[in-house]
């Protein structure tokens, strides 16, 4: 991982402060006009405006809502599909090969189909988000279940675990360290997917705000929204997934 240890080390703070200072200097020197290369102050100002009139938070909420639904569908669907692929050879040979193929399609390439099928709606964006993420979850779950020590499954069956009990009490917890990697990848794909879809659907959300900034020739808005997208990504990566990963790793004694 790129981000390890404490979040606010002196080095890190100095680094970001340095970037802002250099950015400010470049904009003050006036190599490019303000409307092409705004200063950090102008970007911050723009951020403050959109925060004040609520459009920023509405955009964040919209994107996060679509992301959550899409990711939830991707995770639940991917886990089920992955388990079936790992446990039923026929499904692996048939559906499994298709999953590998579909995984190579970038989320954004689903957009035309989503628009034709669902129109310019939330459902269309959620579809793109979910389908972009589901196969990463599927493949990691499959790998996780395939790598379970067969003795765990035998011991569980021997002690009376059957059917769904075996899945929830053994297969899922035993494969969980792998599944977390799948969730992380799935989240990363979903985040890219939702922003990309919103750009093209141009229907609310952070992606829409980016596109709106472009159509208004407002570079500050474009940059400020990009920063917001980056920060949200970073926060979810470190706060949600890194924590979850650490918890599981320490529980298993893998750390």
């Amino acid at each position: 991982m790129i981000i390890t240890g404490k979040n606010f080390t002196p080095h890190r703070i100095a680094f970001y402060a340095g970037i802002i200072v250099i950015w400010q200097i470049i904009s003050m020197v006036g190599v490019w006009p303000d409307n092409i290369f705004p200063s950090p102050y102008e970007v911050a100002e723009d951020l403050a405006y959109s925060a004040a009139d609520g459009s920023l938070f509405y955009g964040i909420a919209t994107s996060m809502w679509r992301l959550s639904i899409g990711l939830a569908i991707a995770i639940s669907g991917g886990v089920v599909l992955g388990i079936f692929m790992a446990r039923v050879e026929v499904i692996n040979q048939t559906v499994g090969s298709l999953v590998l193929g579909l995984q190579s399609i970038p989320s954004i390439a689903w957009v035309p189909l989503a628009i034709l099928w669902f129109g310019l709606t939330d459902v269309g964006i959620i579809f793109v988000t979910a389908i972009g993420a589901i196969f990463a979850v599927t493949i990691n779950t499959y790998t996780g279940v395939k790598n379970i020590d067969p003795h765990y499954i035998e011991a569980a069956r021997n002690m009376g675990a059957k059917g769904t009990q075996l899945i929830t009490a053994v297969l899922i917890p035993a494969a969980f360290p792998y599944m977390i990697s799948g969730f992380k990848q799935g989240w990363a794909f979903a985040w890219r997917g939702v922003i990309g879809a919103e750009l093209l659907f141009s229907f609310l959300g952070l992606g829409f705000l980016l596109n709106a900034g472009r159509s208004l020739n407002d570079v500050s808005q474009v940059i400020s929204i990009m920063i917001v997208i980056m920060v949200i990504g970073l926060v979810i990566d470190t706060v949600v997934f890194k924590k979850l990963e650490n918890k599981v790793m320490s529980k298993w004694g893998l750390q």
Partner: protein
Amino acid sequence: MTKLEAKNIVKHFSHESHKLTALGGINLKVEAGDFVCLVGPSGCGKSTFLRIIAGLEKPDEGQIIFDGHPVTETSPERIMVFQEGALFPWLKVQDNVEFGLKMAGIPKEERAKISNRYLDMMQLTKFANSYTYQLSTGMKQRVAIARALVMDPDVLLMDEPFASLDAQTRDLLLVEMQLIWEKTKKTILFVTHNVAEATVLGTKIAVFSNRPSIIKKEFENNSPRPRITEDESLLKLQQDILAELRPEVKKSRE
């Protein structure tokens, strides 16, 4: 009363292109309360035989009769203790021990009552809230045994459970195993490659031949308990067993 009977158990394995016969017709009668130790050269199929009794594998020929009925699938009546314990690393010790009870739908308070008894018996109470990676190999085997006993199985199937323990820990567990057997009156089948261990534990010792294996000879063992590996009364028996075993081990290496 006959608890378990193996009738002409045959098992083949395909190894690369050729077929390998591991079990060449095993016949064995186990009475209720017997402590049967199975010894034999490595690779002779002792563990496979145990897995067939557990219902985790199907024989190619023959059948296991358990309480008068043929074994068709795995069941908590015949609980296996695996060589490496096969404890679940995502569960705490107590939850590992309660696993089978939970699968059987027994409510939480009752599970705790039962598991506490066996945690106490295996001197694990202090470790109830530990995860398994925090335990030594010996402790892990104790948990595995507790997890099996909690199911109150008719037959306990133990697959070289002490093979990876150091000598001191093994001696300790050999004593405890005898106490458990006396206390619980379980029927036990215990696979080992260690003849001394077999004579300490077993009321009956069955010697497997080299592949395709059959049971070459059975020994009765009525020495007084508790026994330890160095007991002089066991020496003669150990020598007799080794005399049967040695040529088989030699054949297995040819």
